[in-house]
């Protein structure tokens, strides 16, 4: 029997990767973990470049600092704090999940075939990560906008 040639037209590429809609909160968490990861890497590279200005002397350092110590700079930093906290808290949940912790015991698949692994422990982990993110962003805003 001739094997069917795989239909490559179902490949969604970036569009499929960015669509958080179909699989519930776990998919949103998957999406946010990758999005915050890419954002944090971009910030890290920018931060390495920004701090390298220290080698140019006090004038260059102060000039660059003025650029980042603006309202826009503070807003970007608050976003970075949020990304960092979500990525860390959700990442810890994922490390445990990868080690098999908090996934529940395997069970017979019954209708409506909800995966045992996508249980309240995992959902609580995602919510805790989101709550911690909001708290950290509020604290960051109070430090950055609350005066020196």
């Amino acid at each position, binding site marked *: 029997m001739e094997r069917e040639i795989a239909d490559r037209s179902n490949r969604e590429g970036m569009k499929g990767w960015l669509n958080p809609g179909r699989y519930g909160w776990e998919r949103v968490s998957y999406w946010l973990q990758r999005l915050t990861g*890419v954002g944090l890497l971009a910030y890290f590279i920018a931060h390495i470049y920004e701090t390298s200005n*220290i080698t140019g002397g006090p004038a260059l350092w102060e000039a660059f600092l003025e650029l980042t110590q603006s309202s826009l700079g503070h807003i970007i930093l608050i976003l970075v704090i949020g990304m960092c906290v979500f990525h*860390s808290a959700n990442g810890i949940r994922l490390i445990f999940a990868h080690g098999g912790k908090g996934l529940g015991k395997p069970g017979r698949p019954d209708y409506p075939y909800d995966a045992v692994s996508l249980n309240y422990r995992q959902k609580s982990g995602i919510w805790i990560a989101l709550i911690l993110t909001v708290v950290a962003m509020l604290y960051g805003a109070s*430090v*950055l906008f609350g005066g*020196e």
Partner: protein
Amino acid sequence: MEANKTHMAMLRESQIMKIHYITAIGALFVVAVHILMRIAIMPYGMSLEYENVIANYQSIPYIVLLESILVLVSIHGFNGMRVILLELRQSKRWEDGVTVLTIAAMIALIAYGTRTIIIANGLGVE
């Protein structure tokens, strides 16, 4: 086994994920200390003044901390990027290209950051 040999990866994916998680936990710790140093010892604005930043670069424990952040976050960040790119597309050429590019970018970033640490360590404050 033969198929594995044709791939350029020297480590198994499970070993790479262990490194990914270990660097994540390490980075979490050192970045937390770095942020605390910015806000706990003196006000945030003051900690960014030129003299205070240079003083940080001249303290050996702080240099160790900065270099640890540089290495741990670079490994974790670029491996994370590699994982994302490998999820998007799979072919031997793509996978090898992504691996080479992310390792090269990681080495370049660590080298550039280390250069800053070395030069700033040699700067004096009048």
